[in-house]
């Protein structure tokens, strides 16, 4: 069981696009598209995870965490790699529910920060 960290103590950078850069092979259009898709889809998933937590819909919490896991891994958001797996498993098994709130808070905070960062980068590229 992991105690939640605060944003201030999180390692920087929040994310690492090395893998995405490697895959894109220098294709800037693809990089922009990837960031745009993130901005378009992740906030909705975060809302789903929050509302399903509020209604104690643990299977949806688990499924949403599962969905975010691949994105977190691909973007190497190191601060969330362990927590997202913990949330997925705890929601599935309905264990450590007392930690769920703070864990989800951290996830939402970090992912929102990444979203904002991408928005800025996309705006700057225009």
């Amino acid at each position: 069981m992991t105690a939640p960290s605060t944003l201030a103590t999180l390692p920087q950078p929040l994310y690492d696009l090395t893998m995405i850069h490697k895959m894109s092979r220098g294709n800037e259009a693809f990089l922009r598209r990837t960031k745009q898709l993130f901005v378009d889809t992740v906030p909705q998933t975060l809302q789903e995870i929050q509302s399903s937590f509020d209604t104690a819909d643990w299977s949806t919490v688990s499924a949403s965490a599962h969905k975010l896991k691949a994105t977190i891994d691909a973007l190497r958001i190191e601060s969330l790699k362990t927590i997202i797996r913990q949330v997925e498993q705890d929601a599935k098994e309905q264990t450590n529910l007392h930690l769920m709130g703070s864990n989800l808070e951290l996830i939402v905070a970090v992912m929102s920060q990444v979203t904002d960062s991408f928005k800025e980068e996309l705006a700057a590229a225009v």
Partner: protein
Amino acid sequence: MKNTTFKIFILDDDIWYSDLLEYHLSLNPDYEIRKFHAAKDCLAALHERPDALTLDYSLPDKNGSEVLKQIKEQSPDTQVVVISGQEDVATAVDLLKKGAYDYIVKDEDTPERLWNTIQKIRENASLREEIKQLREEIGQKYDFGNVIIGNSEAIKRLFAMMDKAAKTNITVSITGETGTGKELVAKAIHYNSPRKKQPYVAVNVAAIPKELIESELFGHEKGAFTGAMARRLGKFEEANKGTIFLDEIGEFDISLQAKLLRVLQEKEIARVGGNSIVPVDVRIIVATHKNLAEEVRKGTFREDLYYRLLGLPLNLPPLRERGGDILVLAKHFIEGFAKENGLGRKKLSSEAQEKLLSYSFPGNVRELKAVVELAVVLSDDEAIQEYHINFQANSNSDKDFLTRERSLKDYNKDIIQHYLDKYDYNVILVADKLDIGKSTVYRMIQNKELYVKM
């Protein structure tokens, strides 16, 4: 491969991740990729028969295992790569048993691993297509009409019987003079039967030394005899699920006949030196130039084995009884030989045709082929004349024996080889005709002084 485009479906409810996979795979211009975010949409599109499909195991609308099952039912040739966030060995093994090609854990290396897996699938698909084409070619090559050329009533009756034989697993016994095409018929039956994708194994019983034949057919265990360094599978095991062709079955030793009878009755074998019974599922075709009924009367062939082997008897008519087929075959061989050797058109003159029709062809089709091919070589222009047709190829060889100086050893080799060629590599028969020891011939074969076709 039928065309260069390789169709891939991506089924993943995660829009962002599936986009990533799609982009990565699309870097290969030969890949045509479609994304689906719901199982029902993907299943509805399976009629497009994708070559490969990446399946996210944790879909919201359907369990991944269930989706895999439906994909394999609807599109069995589609190779499915399951991508899952769960590193669960039991699930992976279960999915692989259910037909998944591969199971990849979702992490940052997934796109690269998926790329490699798709490449392997593509290579395998290409190999499968090549095998399919080769099998089709073999099937065409051994189409009855391509194997036995002729229009005579005797041949038409033979085709009808071969067709019946090909449709069942009945044992087939082929009789006929040397050179009538017994092995061709056996092959044609196999490659037109339901067993055509399984092994075809031919054994010339007469060409194998008696002391080795049991081990050759039934295999042996390690240490069964001096020199048996390891277990060896015999021809019956090699032919499992397929067809075994036993040529010159009349040469089987009486003690070995009992073992063969057991294979036919119990469908099992025991390796030399072994205690365990090995089941075999083999379709048996036998051939002999001997009259087996006569051999039974003489006591050299078991009566129970004779009746077991009888099955569907096919008698290949000698060439002299096939009337006009002689000219049909001659034309076929002439065209084939001329084409193979880059020669111009060749045609038989009417005198040459008459000469062919008047000959008895004791060597049957094999002899006819040799005669007309020599005639093609000897003729200088388009017409093959009567004097190009030489039935004394043997006596030419005799003249050759006399005119070319050589050692006695070489003379002996040439004579024995000549008899082996003439009598279908039947060592026992040749030794008998030349009044020499069989072991002498076998030794010369082993020392590669003589050539036999197995």
